[in-house]
């Protein structure tokens, strides 16, 4: 057994032993849920919702004879577990343990690469790709493409709250009256343009084909062109014009009572000098020597302050995230700390 494996075995045994001791002496790592039965009656376009605590009973069903019904589980604090409608949740408990063990697996990379980290990384890649694809499907393909290509069916199955597009406002009424010919003609005339992104999308998928890969250049070119066109305007407006506008500051500032405001004057002068000198540093068409070189040097100092501040800010952000993960482990999972008093009385 090499030294690396020995360290892992020791960590594994110490960690497992600590968990066993904790399990023998106290409770931890449990999640609770509050059940609710929702009865919904829709009349005249308004919904009457009655959320009854607990699972459905013969009495609650009898009290809502014509209502649609479903149950939902809301997260409950362990301190509320004596409530008759709060129960131990297997799904959330398994989730909590998965989250805790995966968190530890990622943390283990701080000691070096290991199978636990690689397993967590593989799960992360799969879940992230799946998450992005699902979000793209429901928010992009359904809401933007299907809602225009097949609005009636989309409204019927996926988006009942879909606002009628002016182009097919009459279609819904005609569809319901059985005039399918009209709907087909109208659809052909008005939604033809929506076929373009669909065709582009199919062409984009040709990238996966061994020989027809060049076909994907067309949608890719559209994508690149649209990105360039959008970014050009957006960045020119927000990062160029707005930033210059914001730098046109008064260099002598007076307060409302007409007294001289030294602090604001110094701040404004520093900002204007800082922006101009930093821009001089970025100007490479002239040799940085003499007065120009001196101003450029001042610009470098301003940029160094900016990089130092950004570094400090970024590190603090990461440390906050690190502290939150530790808080999750010690509070939600191990029940060692309880800053929000969620287990008060246990």
């Amino acid at each position, binding site marked *: 057994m090499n030294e690396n494996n020995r360290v892992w075995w020791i960590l594994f045994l110490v960690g497992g032993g600590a968990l066993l001791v904790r399990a023998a002496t106290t409770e931890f790592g449990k999640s609770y849920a509050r059940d609710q039965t929702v009865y919904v009656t829709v009349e005249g376009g308004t919904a009457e919702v009655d959320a009854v605590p607990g699972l459905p009973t013969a009495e609650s069903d009898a009290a809502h004879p014509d209502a649609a019904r479903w149950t939902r589980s809301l997260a409950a604090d362990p301190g509320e577990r004596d409530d008759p409608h709060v129960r131990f949740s297997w799904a959330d408990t398994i989730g909590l343990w998965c989250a805790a063990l995966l968190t530890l697996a990622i943390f283990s990379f701080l000691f070096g690469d290991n199978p636990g980290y690689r*397993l967590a990384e593989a799960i992360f890649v799969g*879940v992230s790709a799946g998450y992005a*694809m699902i979000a793209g499907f*429901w928010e992009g393909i359904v809401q933007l493409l299907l809602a225009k290509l097949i609005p009636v069916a989309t409204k019927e199955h996926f988006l009942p709250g879909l606002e009628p597009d002016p182009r097919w406002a009459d279609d819904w009424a005609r569809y319901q009256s059985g005039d399918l010919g009209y709907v087909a003609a109208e659809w052909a005339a008005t939604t033809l343009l929506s076929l373009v992104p669909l065709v582009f999308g199919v062409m984009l998928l040709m990238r996966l084909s061994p020989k027809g890969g060049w076909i994907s250049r067309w949608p890719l070119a559209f994508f690149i*062109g649209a990105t360039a066109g959008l970014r050009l305007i957006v960045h020119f407006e927000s990062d160029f014009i707005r930033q210059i506008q914001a730098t046109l500051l008064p260099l002598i500032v007076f307060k409302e009572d007409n007294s001289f405001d030294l602090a604001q004057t110094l701040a404004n002068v520093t900002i204007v000098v800082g922006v101009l000198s*930093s821009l001089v540093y970025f100007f490479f068409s002239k040799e940085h020597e003499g007065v120009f070189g001196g101003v450029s040097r001042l610009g470098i100092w301003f940029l160094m302050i*900016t990089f130092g*501040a950004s570094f*400090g800010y970024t590190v603090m952000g990461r440390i906050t995230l690190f502290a939150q993960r530790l808080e999750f482990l010690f509070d939600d999972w191990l029940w060692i700390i309880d800053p929000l008093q969620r287990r008060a009385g246990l």
Partner: protein
Amino acid sequence: MKRTVPLFLAAATGFVLIVASFVPAAGSWGKYAVDWFNILAALAFVLGGGSLLSQHLKKISDQQAGWGYSLVTVVSFLATLVVGLGKFGVAPPTLHPDKVWAGDYKEAGSGFSWIFDYLYTPLAATMFSILACFVASAAFRAFRAKNVEATILLVTAFIVLLGRTYAAIWIGDQADWLASQVVDPAIWHPYVTGLRLDKLTETIMDVFNTAGTRAIMIGIALGIVSTSLKVLLGVDRSYLGSDDR
């Protein structure tokens, strides 16, 4: 056909969007282009998913080194897809209780939200959080106050790091108390209160950092404009790749 049409398409799309920003009558063209862009972006995720599957399935079928991890990736990917597309555990909207597919796919308590809360969020947050250790370790090894510029960067980073914690307020309070034992605070307080670490951090962020960031943003904007124009005018054709495929 393979290169000319894409070049024309990129230029036409880009210039239509630029014109649409300035000509109100052409606003609907811009809206169509943006909608198509968003749809294509969503379809690109399908391409990404397909590419991920093909890469990992090949690794599994060839039984390359680490194929077990590929299997885990494929299973997690497919499970997320099935749960997200099937909307398991999603309640219908209250106004349309008969439409079971119409609920929000991210609804709390649903299968997809379970994956998000217990797999995706902890993994992503922990992945980013361990960067704190790597950044700190790299900074410890690389940061050396060798010249004026490096010293300025180091001192600023130290002030901002400390100034964002409670330690800065505590140190400032202790310094205030000590000074007040020697001199009347009414005399010195208005002049040196800005030197407290927490106040100094605010000044650095609001004044010096603003100036530097503004210059960088102006530079980035000019860079984006020139790069975009190079793409739209066909000077930069790197996105077309080679003619091999």
